[in-house]
């Protein structure tokens, strides 16, 4: 059985509780055991200076090392930021300095061995798409889904490690019986990081990508990142208003899409919490009665 130290990130415990609940539901269904890391900090999300976030992340990596487990993330940004810190901490001199300055006081030491993987990577590399396919009871037939990765699941290459990881979402989409609707913006930024600094640009990005998926005829999009979800789903109405575009495309969290195909109750996947309603997709699947 696959077992992981589960780094939830802040957002799945805050503004996207449906991500947390759907992750837990899917993990249970496919036999992935999660041990939630409670005693760890926010990784800094590319906002906090690395001088502060590197020690915080070294601490997280050390805690997982102590547990003897790889870390599982459910957010592109968590993955990218902890992944980049992990790379820097491969340097022994740097690691020793961080250990001595920050971790020792707490009786901790990071030895540099922890592996950090996003849930998406675990699903494809360790659980296997074939096994997932075998568990599908409710194939998402005729549902067009556009993948959207979030920057940190595409770049930089040294943190991503394997180029093949840039095509995993498509494998999951087709594996769940849905149709992959490719969009050119799938590896671009959703706009969330500048929601405070430049809201107009942030909303323009959200509108651009959701608009592309809609124009290409997708019924929904799927994201492995709650920050992308906040901008593409949460801000979609405002993005539509600010760019005068007609949008209205539902956005799945990755485990919501999988959970639906694996026959988990949509309520348990928290789909009622999505801001853009997923009802049209459920209707297409015959899971909601057609309006009279």
């Amino acid at each position, binding site marked *: 059985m696959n077992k992981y130290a589960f780094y939830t990130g*802040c*957002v799945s*415990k*805050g*503004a*996207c*509780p*449906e991500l947390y609940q759907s992750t837990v539901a899917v993990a249970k269904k496919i036999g992935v055991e999660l041990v939630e890391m*409670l*005693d*760890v*900090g*926010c990784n*800094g*999300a*590319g*906002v*906090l*200076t*690395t*001088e*502060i976030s590197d*020690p*915080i992340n070294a*601490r997280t990596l050390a805690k997982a090392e102590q547990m003897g487990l790889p870390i599982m993330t459910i957010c592109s940004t968590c993955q990218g930021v902890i992944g980049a810190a992990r790379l820097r901490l491969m340097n022994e001199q740097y690691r020793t300095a961080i250990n001595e*300055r*920050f971790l020792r*006081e*707490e009786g901790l030491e990071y030895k540099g061995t922890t592996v950090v993987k996003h849930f998406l990577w675990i699903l494809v590399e360790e659980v296997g798409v074939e096994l997932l396919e075998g568990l599908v009871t409710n194939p998402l037939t005729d549902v067009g889904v556009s993948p959207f990765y979030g*920057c*940190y699941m*595409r*770049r*930089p*290459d040294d943190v991503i490690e394997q180029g093949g990881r840039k095509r995993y979402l498509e494998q999951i989409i087709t594996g769940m019986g849905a149709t992959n609707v490719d969009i050119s913006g799938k590896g*671009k*930024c959703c*706009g*969330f*990081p*500048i929601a*405070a*600094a*430049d809201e*107009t*640009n942030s909303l*323009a*990005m959200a509108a*651009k990508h959701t608009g592309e998926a809609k124009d290409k005829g997708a019924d929904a999009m799927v994201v492995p990142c709650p920050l992308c979800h906040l901008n593409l789903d*949460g*801000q979609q*109405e*405002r993005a539509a208003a600010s760019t005068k575009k007609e949008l209205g495309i539902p956005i799945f969290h990755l485990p919501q899409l999988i959970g639906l195909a694996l026959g988990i109750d949509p309520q348990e996947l928290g789909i*009622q*919490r*999505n*801001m853009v309603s997923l009802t049209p997709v459920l209707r297409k699947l015959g899971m909601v009665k057609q309006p009279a």
Partner: protein
Amino acid sequence: MDVTFKVRRHDPRTGGKPSQQEYSVDLAPGATVFDALVQIREEQDGSLGFRGNCGRGFCGDCVVRMNGKLTLSCLTPVDKTVKDGVIAVEPAPYARQTKDLMYDDQTFLWDKYRAMKPWLVSDGAPAKPVTEEAMANVRTMMRCTMCGLCDFGCTVIDVDQGFMGPAALTKAYRFMIDPRDTATKERLTMAGEPKGMWDCVHCWEASEHCPVGIDPTHRIMDMRDLSVRHGIRSGKQNPKVARHYDSFAKSVKESGWLDEFKITMDTEGIMGSLRLAPVALKALTRGKVAVIHPKRSGAEHIKRIFEKVEAEFKAGQK
């Protein structure tokens, strides 16, 4: 090697619509797309317009899109780019198109570059010797050719060409870390104004596009770190960014993690929060926002990390 080039042609001065012209070329092994364009101009069509001088990746002038990929034509081998015997060549985006593959990047690139004061500023004190070590990173950054590829590939510029962009910002950073320059703080304030470094989404596209390994996205992130270290969290016209950083840092420092609700309130203020109220209300009714964040166990250790680093920053600022 026989290759067909499908080149986009347009001369805005004479009006008319853009068209596509085909040229078949017999090329020597190892030829680049730039070589091919030169050969076309010399042997077939003297009216074809394109940019490029050195043919060696030095001048940074020859950016075009080749079978979808945007980079320097003189560093692009034909045999690695050709698909089914064809290479489609299109002009670089955003910059003002002048003719065929030629563009004028004055507004797109050079005006922003100039705005960053790309020269050494001295406070008048006698020059001190600099070490090789202190110059190492500066030297790397001096390899920048101002090809603009990082800007052409930038996700933010894609929606807003008013963004300073990675090329100019990276140039600003090159002077900030130059041990001979004495205007670091002024530069940080300038680069921290709206449309500057805090408008970057750190998507790493710029780094992927840079042909000489400057890694512009990393440099922008380094510049932000430097800014925080100096206690300058944003430019004078950009107070929202500073509020966002401070609130973010405070939340993690005090509780170990983020309180998105509080950060929005602190950053946006009452009026800004009102603007977001409809979305927030909808989110609340859907049970999306956990308003009360419990403090994490281990939060005191996170706080200790903050205090140590902040004390060091303070000492350095004196």
